[in-house]
């Protein structure tokens, strides 16, 4: 294995650069190094102005999502040696405005996430000293979808979001489904009202790439298709039953 590897990194300073450009750096190629180690090496020893997000270094915080050789990945979970002899191309996540270098503006997602109401909604609150009991089987219903770390790799992978920025997107809908399937929640119809439309679940055309790139195996594509099935069933019930679905 070669002892060094070239990293091509997107550099962009909106105050100075008319548009993003690629800059190459050479870093040591250690077997145990991930792309994030290479970026930190560049920042510590080659160019202190390189800007990128990171925090936990262990695939939990979801901060270091970026495009690595054109594929959305967590920089902390992507080994450099897998790309030897290189070069490795590191770019900011696709479909988001670049703030600086590898840092993107995620405000659009945060706005859409709130629209999904990813919290437990109760029509009648239980007294504070009463527990909301949940069995392991009930937990299993939504556990997979609760693993989302909001890394937004699914948005960078989704061509529908790239083509139509109005689309709510994979993670926000998967999180809505996570709460819909929670036995303690009573807000499914409220969420359906805000997500059963063209910008919501019906905007998804099931490319499936969101599921492929998800580092936590959440399967957002599956969540959206299940949500569509629920929405279609509710629509049918509303059409057929005398008092509708509610």
């Amino acid at each position, binding site marked *: 294995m070669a002892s060094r590897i070239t990293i091509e990194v997107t550099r962009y300073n909106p105050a100075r650069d008319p548009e993003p450009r690629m800059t190459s750096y050479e870093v040591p190629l250690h077997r145990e190094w991930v792309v994030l180690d290479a970026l930190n090496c560049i920042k510590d020893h080659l160019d202190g102005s390189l800007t990128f997000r990171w925090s936990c270094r262990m695939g939990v915080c979801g901060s270091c999502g970026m495009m690595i050789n054109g594929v959305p990945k967590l920089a902390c979970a992507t080994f450099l040696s897998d790309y030897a002899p290189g070069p490795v191309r590191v770019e900011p996540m696709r479909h988001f405005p670049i703030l600086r270098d590898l840092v993107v503006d995620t405000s659009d997602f945060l706005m859409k996430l709130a629209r999904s109401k990813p919290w437990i909604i109760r029509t009648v609150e239980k007294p504070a000293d009463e527990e909301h009991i949940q069995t392991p089987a009930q937990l*299993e*219903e939504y556990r997979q979808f609760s693993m989302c770390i909001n890394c937004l790799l699914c948005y960078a992978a989704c061509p529908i979001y790239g083509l139509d920025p109005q689309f709510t997107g994979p993670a926000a809908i998967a999180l809505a489904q996570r709460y819909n399937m929670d036995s303690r929640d009573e807000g499914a119809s409220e969420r359906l009202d805000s997500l059963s439309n063209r910008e919501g679940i019906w905007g998804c*055309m*099931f490319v499936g*790439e969101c599921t492929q790139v998800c580092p936590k195996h959440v399967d957002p594509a599956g969540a959206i298709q299940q949500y569509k099935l629920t929405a279609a069933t509710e629509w049918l019930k509303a059409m057929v039953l005398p008092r509708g679905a509610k």
Partner: protein
Amino acid sequence: MSTYWWLARWSYLTFILREASSVFVGWTVLLTLVQIWALTHGPSANAAFHEWMRYPLMLGVNVIAFLFVLFHAVTWFGLTPKAMVIRVKGQRVPDWAISGPNYAAWVLVSLGVAWVVLRG
């Protein structure tokens, strides 16, 4: 986004082909309706339809349409376990248990149609 974004990854290309296959599904439905119309309008209409179907251009289009319809069906059945989550005794049933009955129904219906068409 580039106009050619769908060529960037195999999964994007598969998706576009799956979407495009709907056109051929529509074509096959249309052709079936025309065939039924020909069947109900006497032997000469039926013979004319069969004559039309023998044109090399029609044969070529229908071979492509058949492959796309096949692709459409296989990808569609492959996606069903994603949308339908069935749990038995707390365990999610495997994907094949959901897509399997779809394939079985497909084979049965195809055999039924073949019997009606080919029995002479």
